[in-house]
């Protein structure tokens, strides 16, 4: 029995789990409709049609089904399955209790769909009924059981990664464990990928969605991509969220695309398909719902200028609470309409910004590779621990929180204190030169507070 098999046995040893019939699952995946694979859609779709994917998860089967009906009506391209936060913490007992309460009382006691509790047999019915690709959104450090259940259900896109689902989402879950748990996920995805179309893995670029500089986002995207391709994954999406400056978004997209290709080639994985995903504004939203719609619309315009392959949407209710299915479907319809009427987009290139950003990313990547550890995941782990990678506003204790960023006059996010991140001197000087640093500390703190709320 392989190590993977052994690990599998351990995670299935759980009273809330479906009894897995792996032979049947294998057969199911082998014969599954191509339409369920987003990797297939990426290949098929005329390259200029961006796929539209909303967010959303409800506790009960019935409500999730109804949500999907709304989405299909609104002409969705990719369905989301967002998981509740108990499941994310592997607390299936609480999830089970809350699911029963939700079913009994018609009140939602969970902030997502408890996939493990519903089980793959039930969930697969829903997925195959709609016959659209489904993307699993969670935020789980130990997602091993979740991913087994997801793939068996017909969910062939898995979001997340050891860094992106940990640094923004956790205070003290051990990072080294996360790497190992995600290694399992990558392998499972890689194995199933040989049966039919590949399973797509997607990294979560938005991170804390708060003043994260593009260099950090890109480095983390590239590293999670490499960790995934290393294990044999053949279809991977790098992603990022609206930064606040149209130019910075376009530059971020261009550099991310270019370097993803470059680094994939470096590890002889040029055969893997790499896609670019754009998240509509992920930071603090305006409470005015009309304004929220303007913001969402602008995100779509920018995604088109960036040339994203997929866009993940927000709703007018974002600042207020979990969106209704109506609000959610409305965003999908509006986004599709916007993509339809948005024409004659210019091809924008900002060479200077691209060069600076490329140099920054390469320098950080080099520092990671230079770490003395023997495997990539350990190098990355060490780099986070010693602050070579530093994510602003991460709640995790391992994160250094030494880097300070502000917005310049054009709202580009700039690094004004690099901490331990090896931003090359020339780039660092450039970043600081864009900002007014003559101000006193109080003013700078006020600027940061203001910058967090720029869309409000």
């Amino acid at each position, binding site marked *: 029995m392989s190590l993977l098999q052994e690990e599998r046995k351990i995670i299935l040893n759980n009273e809330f789990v479906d009894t897995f019939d792996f032979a049947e699952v294998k057969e199911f995946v082998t014969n599954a409709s191509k339409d369920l694979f987003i990797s297939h859609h990426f290949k098929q779709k005329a390259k200029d049609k961006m796929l539209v994917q909303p967010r959303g998860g409800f506790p009960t089967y019935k409500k999730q089904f109804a949500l999907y009906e709304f989405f299909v009506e609104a002409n969705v391209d990719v369905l989301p399955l967002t998981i509740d936060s108990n499941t994310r913490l592997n607390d299936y007992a609480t999830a089970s209790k809350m699911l029963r309460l939700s079913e009994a009382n018609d009140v939602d006691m969970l902030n997502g769909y408890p996939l493990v509790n519903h089980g793959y047999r039930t969930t697969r019915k829903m997925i195959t009924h709609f016959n659209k690709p489904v993307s699993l959104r969670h935020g789980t450090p130990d997602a091993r059981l979740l991913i087994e259940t997801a793939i068996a259900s017909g969910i062939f896109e898995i979001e997340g990664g050891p860094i992106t689902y940990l640094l923004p*989402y956790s205070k003290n879950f051990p990072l080294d464990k996360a790497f190992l748990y995600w290694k399992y996920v990558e392998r499972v995805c890689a194995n199933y990928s040989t049966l039919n179309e590949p399973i797509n893995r997607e990294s979560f670029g938005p991170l804390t969605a708060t003043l994260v500089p593009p260099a950090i986002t890109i480095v983390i995207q590239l590293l999670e991509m490499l960790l995934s391709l290393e294990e044999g994954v053949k279809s991977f999406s790098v992603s990022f969220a609206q930064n606040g400056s149209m130019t910075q978004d376009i530059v971020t997209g261009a550099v991310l695309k270019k370097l993803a290709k470059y680094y994939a080639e470096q590890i002889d994985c040029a055969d893997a398909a790499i896609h670019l995903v754009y998240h509509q504004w992920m930071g603090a939203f305006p409470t005015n719902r009309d304004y929220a719609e303007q913001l969402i619309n602008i995100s779509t315009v920018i995604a088109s200028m960036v040339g994203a392959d997929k866009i993940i949407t927000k709703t007018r209710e974002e600042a207020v*609470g979990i969106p209704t299915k109506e609000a959610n479907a409305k965003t999908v319809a509006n986004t599709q309409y916007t993509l339809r009427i948005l024409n004659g987009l210019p091809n924008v290139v900002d060479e200077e910004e691209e060069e600076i950003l490329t140099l920054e990313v390469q320098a950080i990547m080099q520092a990671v590779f230079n770490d003395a550890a023997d495997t990539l995941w350990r190098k990355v782990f060490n780099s986070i621990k010693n602050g070579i990678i530093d994510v602003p506003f991460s709640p995790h204790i391992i994160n250094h929180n030494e880097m300070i960023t502000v917005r310049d006059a054009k709202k580009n996010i700039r690094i004004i204190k690099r901490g331990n991140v090896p931003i090359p001197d020339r780039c660092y000087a450039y970043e600081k030169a864009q900002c007014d640093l003559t101000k006193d500390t109080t003013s700078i703190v006020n600027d940061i507070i203001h910058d*967090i709320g720029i869309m409000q």
Partner: protein
Amino acid sequence: MKVVTGVVGNDIHVVANRLIDLSLRARGFEVFNLGVNTYLEEFFDAVVETGAEILLISSLNGEAEGWGREVKALKAQYKNLDDLIMMIGGNLVVGSGKAEDIVPRYKKYGFDLVCHQVDLNTGLDTLEAFIQERNTP
């Protein structure tokens, strides 16, 4: 005055917490910030340990409701917390709710000041007004 603050439960929304820290300091409070992902016991333990007069809890992801119900029972297990000013703010329900329903409910849970989707500065102004009123004989 001493304040213990933090974000309750499994909630990891840290941005408001960082701003609250800064704002409280700017207003002259002595701040003990427990950060995100803090359980009720940890809050009360810290209050006892630091001798804080104010406990200011944030909740953003909707889970406050679950914790709120346990506040009274837990607080009763500690001594000398009768004068503690208890404040909570952020998004206090899953989905959206009306302040007129939410505020009385949380007051029943034992909070003196309840700020559902209230701007931080407005909230802290209310807090200072509350302190002043209490201190006026």
